[in-house]
């Protein structure tokens, strides 16, 4: 077959191809469906966390006026926290799969572009987060008589902001592993927990020391959890917190994308795309 005939057998090669994004999502989906323990693990941890915090919530509601005022505040907090954690982990783990299988060399001699790959990492992160968190949220209804979905439409805003912040953190971790190799792999599992105290997941930002409150309010996650508590305690939607979360997310995503692109470029300078792996 002549090359001209071959050209007729392929789709056009646009600068951003949803077909290639879909191919990469398919690649990660194949990995996930091929291993039921991995599939189970996605839902296991959020469910265990939800059960643990559900009982703590029940106990605290009978002994703490603050918790009693906001029905299911701790359960909501832990489930939304898992959106952030799973969002970040979804990006990092899919990336690590490429490192473990030393597949970056093959991927980037194909027409796949970095932006398409990142879009696929985000897409897969969304799928993994939904698989992990939705069963736990549904199980909270019969177990504790509390539905996260009672938060209503704002829940979509909270979910979107937390998962996007998770993606930003995931991109930074990818950038660090591309730069420092598999020695930085551990960051994928711990980085998000560094932000937990200042994200004010289970308590209001006001309990933090003054200087730490500024740190907290510079993170989209703290604004989301403040917004969540405003709905649960006062029944009011704090648009100011949502606006801050969106603005900060745009800033973090911009910075983290720049860090990823720089790191990817440097990996091409150092030849790391062909060599990096376990």
């Amino acid at each position: 077959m002549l090359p001209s005939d071959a050209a007729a057998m392929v789709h056009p090669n646009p600068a951003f191809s949803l077909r290639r994004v879909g191919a990469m999502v398919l690649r990660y989906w194949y990995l996930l469906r091929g291993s039921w323990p991995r599939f189970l693990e996605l839902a296991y941890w959020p469910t265990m966390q939800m059960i643990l915090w559900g009982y703590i919530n029940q106990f605290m509601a009978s002994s703490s006026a603050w918790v009693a005022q906001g029905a299911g505040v701790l359960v909501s907090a832990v489930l939304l926290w898992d959106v952030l954690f799973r969002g970040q982990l979804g990006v990092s783990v899919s990336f690590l799969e490429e490192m473990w299988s030393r597949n970056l060399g093959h991927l980037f001699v194909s027409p796949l572009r970095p932006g398409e790959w990142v879009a696929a990492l985000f897409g897969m992160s969304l799928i993994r987060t939904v698989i992990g968190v939705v069963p736990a949220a549904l199980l909270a209804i019969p177990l504790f008589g509390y539905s996260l979905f009672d938060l209503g439409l704002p829940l979509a805003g909270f979910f979107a902001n937390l998962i996007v912040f998770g993606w930003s953190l995931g991109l930074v971790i990818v950038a660090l592993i591309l730069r420092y190799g598999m020695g930085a792999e551990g960051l994928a599992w711990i980085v998000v927990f560094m932000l937990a105290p200042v994200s004010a997941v289970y308590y209001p930002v006001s309990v933090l020391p003054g200087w730490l409150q500024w740190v907290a309010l510079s993170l989209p996650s703290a604004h989301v959890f403040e917004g969540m508590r405003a709905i649960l305690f006062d029944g009011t939607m704090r648009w100011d917190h949502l606006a801050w979360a969106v603005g900060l997310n745009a800033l973090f995503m911009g910075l983290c994308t720049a860090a990823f692109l720089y790191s990817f470029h440097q990996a091409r300078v150092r030849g790391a795309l062909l060599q990096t792996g376990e």
Partner: protein
Amino acid sequence: MDQCAKQHAIRVETLTKRYGTARSGEVTAVDGISFTVAAGSVTGLLGGNGAGKTTTISMLLGLLLPTSGTVEVLGVDMVRHRHAALPRMNFSSPYVELPHRLTVRENLTVYGHLYGLKGVKRRVEELAEHLELTRFLERPSGGLSAGQKTRVALAKALLNRPELLLLDEPTASLDPDTADWIRTYLERYRLESGATILLASHNMLEVERMCDDVLMMRQGRIVDRGSPSGLLARYGRTSLEDVFLDIARDRANGEDASRDDRREAADAAE
């Protein structure tokens, strides 16, 4: 596409790659090489370990950015516009395996979509039949033998019917029968498609059999080039292996670099 691009599938000018920094110590892996590869030819890229073959191939693929010089593949500047050439070329190396946990069919399907193929399922099955992989399609890639893995890697490399195929030691660690089968398949592909093949190999018989042209590399430089028969005549040898040893040991210049010196140079480049 200009006339030059039609004649040459690859055009490289004063290509240099240095690793490290002046402070940490620089290593020059590829040192100002220039060459062209004629469209439709099979060209061998030979040299000892650390000679700069893999670095050169990585730059041809656009995976590695050169320190200086230009790389043009199928008429496309690979530093700036590599995505215009990548759908028309492909690469295979036994040292870069496909993901182990995906089945052969899954791996080939993913890459078929990445290359934007129409009728991916049909193409995968067609290649599996040609490469005698049909009964392995549902097996995890990691569970295959070396020969089967090489055939799967070749199937991946041929998915998009590439105009340019870059092969890094395509028959390394294969038994003679399987290696011969792979060579025959590649020869037939080249004949039928008119594709250009650049082949890095340590197997001199393979190079003698398959290549129209040979580039000899040592310490990051191209030290000689010619057809296998031309090189044999020039060095007064009866086998390409002896020519290789003459060049690797710099015997052509009346020198015979000590093994320690060569090892040191190879380690530095790697």
